[in-house]
């Protein structure tokens, strides 16, 4: 086989999703954001609904998500993406409407918007990147920062008397009547990436089919914020994050 043969479409085993453009990403090496962006682009493309899709970007490292995935995007102010998505979905009821948010955005400044959009059962999907830190602003403590974990604003480690406890926001979401699908995933291995993609697909289908609110948490790394190599960060996540934020479905109403 020549190179020409190999690059023929029928011989390809992998291709970049067409909705993903060539803009160089600003994400750090090892960051989970890029992988999840790609999954979103793939799912929208496979569902063939880019003409009926509105994504809401957060304030956080994913603030520039609109640069990389070629769909219509609205940049929300910090924490308000679920409010934005609620309005868009109510006004465009047949669209896929989803938000993409970090832990600070979704579970701290925007907790009110998150809980109430989910509790109203807005037909939206929320993709939640939980890297247990404020990546964009340089690695400060997040609501999901683990006990004892060191960040720029808890340099001696998170302590309950000073900082309170990590917020189990996804668990809270699963108790709300408006949610139909709540799941926790990761993108650290090929097998997990496949599972995460399936979860995103289900959440997006729930939005289009008006089945209620879906929340897909992706337990993620932040090698820069955690001050670890990408490899070490993945290992640390498996050893410390997964026991505290176990992977799997917390709620799946349509399956039952």
């Amino acid at each position: 086989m020549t190179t020409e043969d190999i690059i023929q479409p029928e011989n390809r085993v992998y291709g970049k999703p067409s909705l993903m453009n060539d803009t160089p990403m600003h994400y750090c090496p090892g960051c989970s954001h890029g992988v999840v962006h790609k999954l979103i682009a793939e799912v929208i493309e496979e569902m063939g609904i880019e003409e009926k899709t509105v994504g809401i970007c957060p304030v956080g490292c994913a603030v520039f998500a609109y640069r990389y995935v070629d769909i219509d995007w609205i940049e929300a102010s910090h924490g308000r993406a679920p409010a934005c998505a609620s309005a868009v979905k109510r006004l465009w009821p047949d669209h896929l409407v989803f938000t993409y948010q970090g832990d600070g955005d979704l579970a701290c400044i925007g907790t009110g918007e998150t809980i109430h959009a989910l509790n109203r059962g807005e037909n939206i999907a929320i993709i939640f990147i939980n890297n247990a830190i404020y990546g964009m602003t340089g690695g400060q403590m997040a609501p999901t920062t683990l006990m004892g974990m060191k960040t720029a604003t808890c340099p001696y480690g998170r302590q309950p008397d000073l900082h309170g406890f990590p917020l189990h926001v996804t668990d809270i979401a699963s108790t709300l009547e408006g949610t139909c699908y709540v799941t926790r995933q990761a993108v650290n291995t090929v097998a997990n990436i496949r599972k995460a993609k399936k979860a995103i697909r289900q959440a997006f289908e729930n939005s289009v089919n008006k089945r209620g609110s879906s929340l897909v948490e992706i337990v993620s790394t932040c090698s820069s914020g955690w001050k670890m190599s990408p490899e070490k960060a993945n290992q640390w996540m498996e050893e410390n994050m997964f026991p505290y934020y176990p992977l799997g479905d917390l709620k799946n109403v349509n399956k039952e």
Partner: protein
Amino acid sequence: MKKDIVLLKGNEAIAKAAYRYGYDGFFGYPITPQSEILETLSLDKPWETTGMVVLQAESEIASINMVYAAGATGKCAMTSSSSPGVALMQEGISYMAACEIPGLVVSVGRGGPGLGTIQPGQADYYQAVYGGGNGDYHCIVLAPDSVQEMADFMGLAKELMFKWRMPLIILSDGVIGQMMEKVVMPPFQPRRSDDEIREQCPWATNGLGLKGRKYNFMSSLELDAAEMQKRNRAMTDKYNRICETEVRYESYKADDAEYIIIAYGCSARISMNAVDRLRSEGVKAGMLRPITLWPFPTKKIKELASHCKAMLTVELSEGQMVNDVRAAVEGEVPVSFFGRSGGVVPSPHEVYEAFKELVKP
């Protein structure tokens, strides 16, 4: 055609005019003295007739961000609130201005600061006109002085905010919001169809016709300083054009007047009486009522200053608009201030007495 005349509160007129003018969505949170807007919409159920979406949001912050996103998709959306609630909306309003997103905020003012009072106030002039949000921006600000104008300005607001692609504030007060008057209601206008939105708002982020155009995004983020300045300069050009073309005011016996009251909203209604009384006493009294508080009728006030002896600004505040009037006259005539605040509403007689002070030799 037979006129559709009804007796309504100012707040009810806002609500009913919203679906008659084809607004697509209302998102709001209860606060006195404007809760009748959300209550009337909830009672009238426009979602069953015009398809207008009505949602009681979890806060004013959520409300304004719903308006922001709805406007970003090309829909005509609004919220309403009163002083502390409008304070919470300022970040969202700044984002709307920055992204050039149309959207309406109806602000029915009460006395402040802080939680203040639920009685009427006009102390949010600075908040509306100078912006409580961050950055260089403006909103068009309309100030109705009657229940009729509450209804009519809903149509004007829709036209102006889409024409200029920016947030617009109807700055009312607890008097105009709560009082009842006869109103000629506007005829029903259909909401815009998806096709009309696609055609009229090619900038909108609604996914519509994506294959036919480049994708859109709505963002105020710009990390390149020179680019950010360029955006600001383009906005300033737009604001300058608005100042040249969109100034609105009502001149009441002002053109030959020697003594002039400048007042807006409920203060203008109260002051009219003082003007008439002084006229009946042989004094050449008049009033100028700014209808657009931004853009402010600076030129008109300057022109009036060239042939009058003194001006009096009447406000339900400790003195806010008076500074714009003083800036407009550039020292040509003395500008006095008469104000009541914290929810106190002056009687026409009190305004008359204050106005008469100017006339004393």
